[in-house]
């Protein structure tokens, strides 16, 4: 299980990094969503190998349980990631309405940052 999870996290991080480095803001947005999922999965895998352990639910026959803390952390991280993604989508829409493009290369093409009007 650990090896498969590690590979999946690696692939997710790789794809996310590639997307974040694109010049289109929409691709950056998708990159961020992938990135936060990769981070959540990474956090989940930190509870150790799940082989032979039960889900962390208080039950009558208590055996070996999976460490519940990373799962609690992920819940918080998912909520935060969701809120931030929602904000990012809204901002992107605003950008598109203003500039009629979401491509960084076009947005910043004729910009001189040393001065402001």
């Amino acid at each position, binding site marked *: 299980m650990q090896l498969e999870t590690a590979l999946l996290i690696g692939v997710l991080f790789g794809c996310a990094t590639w997307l*974040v480095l694109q010049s289109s*803001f929409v691709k*950056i947005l998708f990159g*961020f969503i992938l*990135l*936060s999922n*990769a*981070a*959540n999965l*990474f*956090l989940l895998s*930190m509870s*150790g190998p799940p082989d032979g352990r039960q889900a962390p639910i208080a039950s009558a026959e208590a055996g070996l349980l999976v460490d519940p*803390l*990373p799962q609690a*952390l992920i819940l*918080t*991280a998912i909520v*935060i990631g969701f*809120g*931030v993604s929602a*904000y*990012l989508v809204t*901002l992107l829409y*605003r*950008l598109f309405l*203003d*500039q009629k493009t979401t491509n*960084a290369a076009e*947005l*910043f093409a004729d910009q001189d*940052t*040393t*001065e*402001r*009007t």
Partner: protein
Amino acid sequence: MNLVILPLLLPLVTAVTLLFWGRPSPGRRVLAGASAAGQLAVAGLLLWRVEAGGPLVLPVGNWSAAFGIVLVADLLAAVMVGLSSFTALAAVLYGFAEYRPVVEHPLRLMLIQFLVAGINLAFLTGDLFNLFVAFEVMLIASYALLTLEADDWDVKQAFPYLAVNLVGSTLFLCATGFAYRLFGTLNFAELAVRAAALGDDPRVTALALWLLGVFGLKAGLFPLYWWLPNSYPILPAPLAALFAGMLTKVGVYMLLRMFGTVLPHHLSGLHMLVAWLAGATMIFGVLGALSRNFIRGILSYHILSQIGFMVLAIGLFTELAFAACIFYIIHHIIVKASLFLVGGTAALLNRTDNLDRMGNLWRHAPGLGVLFLLQALSLAGLPPLSGFWGKYLILTEGLRLGEYVLVGLALVASLLTLVSMLKIWNAAFWSGAEDREVCLWDWRWVRMNRVSAGMVLVSLAIGLGAEGVFRVARQAAVQVRDQASYQRAVQAVVTKDQARRP
């Protein structure tokens, strides 16, 4: 003990009340102003209690320290909370002076309160994951403030800020998971105990590097600083002052906390890396400042250059250097915030802050000129202003340790700081072309000037009473580096149930 949670609770309650109050009105402003003043009073009380009686620890939700979240207010945290409350109060008052209630954006005051709550939580928390939550609260409020009053041109500058900070947050989350896997806990005190037990394990170094990357990004350390100088200038003056004063300093505070309190002290290679990154930050920041031609842009680049000084002190890693760093933080937050306020007033009078079209300010508003000069010279480090003492301490410590190259870089950076401040001075205040109009009839500048004058007075007091401030900084530095007593203070916390049991 419950005093520790008040710096969080007050801004949160105020923010929610403001949210439901609806339209901006004088009454709403009174509430926001009174709350900001109350927060400053609470921070003062906290500082006084901690200074007299040692760190205060509060187990939130009555869980014992090993399982639950603890809030820890040691002297450094209390000082930082005091500074954030003071800067927020100044920003709120300046905002009142700038716009009448009808023109004010209805969400601005509320978001400022959320931002302050996040900042204060970051200072007070004693738990790595709770720190992540604090960063997110702070960052989401800052995203919203950044784009709240932005026009077309501004909004596209906000996107890189967002993208960089989002990636930074994700990396922070991964670092938290890594730390949990490595140590089985996220509590700072427990982390320190278990990290020390691991000794020379390379995984501890890896975690330290990871955290350096995350907090270096937040602090604006070379090479991860380019998100800052284009995004800060799009903020309105009072918000820019709050951002410039507090946000990057949260990153510096976390570096102090991590390297001083949590991570073992023998990672000297890493400390050297920190010091050199700081040297590069100083030079690149100040060169960037020279390249800009508008006040907010110049000041934004100076934040980076000053971050370099503070982080250099962390990299030198002696007790005196830590004290110098804390002194420098205290000096810098007040000076930087007040410079942004002064710049805002100057931009109001000239109707622009583009240096090519400014001028005549010294002739018509000498009071503003004096305020600017005091703060600019303090930033450059002229005695007896507060910046001199911070730089003096850092440089003497650097010389004592034989880091001549780094000291040389710092001196060059100081000199160039003075040059770029003179650039503002010559263009905006000294130049006297006839066509540069000064809108003195705009009465708002008088009240705005009073707020910045208040900050300048505090800054002067820091410079003239440097010995007293330094004594506090020294005490805070000793506490930050004393891992054993930090652990004792946290582990000694008893929850109410335990106390009741015989």
